[in-house]
């Protein structure tokens, strides 16, 4: 009778005893990961400072983007942190793999396959944001120099179009509602264009007339200055 109760406990403790070395190996791997991540964070932060990454990222507008999302640390520190977590996460995954639990292994494999998509999506979003800002600014300056009164609107339109395209691409990459996002984007984009066309056609008749009259008037008053 006693053996009926004792046997499961024996088996349980036996399994724990058998699992203990594996767990110890996993923990050692994680501990090594912590040390490696800490060392690499220090090294990468120092190299980033040496390469003047902080002022470069400030100049190209990456810092503005990060500050808007609540990250106040300098870029060199952020890169160091990123390296720290990537290294640590890698070691944790290796450590978990060392435990040889089938369900955990499958989950980790799926996660690992998805990680590149997440990284690429983040890169697309950052590039989209920067490109949107750059092209928006270029459109603003060009339209002001062409004397277009709606320069601000044109700039915002360019900026948001580029960013929306980037978001659509990122979501598609992550596999989130692939067709839905694309169709939604097409509907929204088409709707905006139609709305603008209607606004100019119906609401802006007087403005358009005034603009054309002004253009014609300016044509009658030529500017013959030779600037150079």
């Amino acid at each position: 009778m006693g053996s009926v109760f004792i046997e499961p406990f024996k088996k349980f403790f036996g399994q724990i005893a058998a699992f203990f070395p594996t767990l110890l190996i996993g923990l050692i791997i994680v501990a090594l990961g912590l040390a490696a991540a800490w060392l690499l964070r220090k090294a990468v932060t120092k190299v980033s400072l040496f390469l003047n990454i902080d002022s470069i990222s400030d100049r190209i507008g990456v810092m503005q983007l990060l500050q808007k999302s609540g990250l106040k640390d300098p870029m060199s520190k952020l890169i160091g942190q990123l390296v720290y977590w990537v290294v640590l996460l890698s070691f944790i995954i290796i450590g978990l793999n060392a435990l040889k639990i089938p369900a955990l292994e499958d989950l980790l494999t799926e996660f690992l396959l998805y990680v590149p998509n997440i990284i690429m999506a983040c890169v697309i979003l950052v590039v989209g944001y920067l490109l949107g800002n750059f092209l928006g600014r270029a459109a603003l300056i060009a339209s002001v120099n062409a004397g277009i009164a709606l320069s601000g609107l044109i700039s915002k339109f360019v900026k948001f179009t580029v960013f929306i395209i980037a978001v659509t691409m990122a979501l598609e990459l992550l596999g989130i509602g692939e067709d839905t996002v694309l169709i939604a984007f097409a509907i929204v984009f088409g709707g905006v264009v139609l709305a603008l066309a209607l606004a100019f056609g119906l609401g802006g008749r007087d403005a358009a007339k005034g603009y054309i009259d002004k253009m014609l008037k300016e044509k009658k008053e030529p500017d013959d200055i030779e600037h150079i």
Partner: protein
Amino acid sequence: MYNFNNSAKQLFIINIQGSKIEGVILRDEVNNKLKDIGEADILVGIPSFNNADTIAHVVRAVQAGIAKYFPDMKAILINSDGGSSDNTHEIVEKTIIEDFQPLLIDQRQNIFSKIVTPYHGIPGKGSAFRTIFQIARELNIKACAVVDSDLRSITPEWIDLLIRPVLQREFDFVSPYYLRHKYDGTITNSIIYPVTRALYGKRIRQPIGGDFGFSGRLAEYYLSKDVWESDVARFGIDIWMTTTAVANDFKVCQSFLGAKIHAAKDPSSDLSAMLTQVCSSLFMLMEEYSSKWKEVTKTDPVPLFGFQFSVGLEPVNVNVERMISMFDLGIRELSELLKEILSIESMKELIEISSSEPFNMPDDLWARIIYDYAISFHNKIMSVEHILKTLTPLYLGKVASLVTDMAASSANEVEERLEALCQAFEKQKSYLIERWE
């Protein structure tokens, strides 16, 4: 085509249509043809692009100038063309003065050669000049001149005035001095002349005149510089030539050429690009010669040759209202960018000006604005093209202000007004030096 004419004038034309210049080395084909010429004393370069209507007059003036003033010298005319589609190069080839008697010139000219060649590289006046410099070096030229291909007012005397100071007075660089309408040359008057004068201490009135004389020595020096992928290859060439000569202590003078009249063109069509290219070169040179201009504390007059006279100039229509509205639009829409480029005080003053009546932009403020742009360019606070292009509306504001100021002024009063502007730039130079580092 290689045509040697054995007449008294000994005219021969070399057409190097297939030539290509890579880096600073001419192709063998070109070199071979230049070897046939050997050496020459004088070179006159004409950059062109679709100037069929005007270039014949320029070529005749050059040929007459050489025949009249330098009959004993071996001379060459180079047409460096940007791929014209209106038979500009055929016109250059065919244009010859057959009979010099109506010009009261004796038929005693030595050899006059003509080369028509396309240039390569970035399309622009600077790339055309690079080919001219290269050929000058190959032919061991003593004195060169370059003249625009759309000039209607060029006379044979221009060639004498641009070449003789080099040949007889040992000057290395001859800058033009023109009579222009008080509203013309506004980039020169409001930016280039005051900045060049304040920075380098030489009062060269037309630093971007475009028609220059220079020594073979200086042509070789120009060629040694690696600037041909920048805006120097475009409209920036003129200020680059002048500044390079001045900053490197070449001997500089001016020649009075009279009125400068171009073929009619739409002057506002590419204002922003023109302003960007010229200012880009100006600011790039400030980087290169910062140690030189920081030491300059006074300005000196530059010798002026030629017989000075006055002429009646055609009236120029100016739409001041449109310029002010462009300025207002710029202040309204570009304020976020301008805040990054300009100092807080300058920005505040600009906002005050945009709502003021009558419109007036003070000289001190304008000088600080230009220096702020130079500093922003130096520090690369954003894309340099974006920095420079935001200058256009502010520039139009200053032009509107100057035009209003000078509406009733005579030519002398205009020069006095511009003198005051130059002094403002000289006064504000300390502002620039303080912020440069």
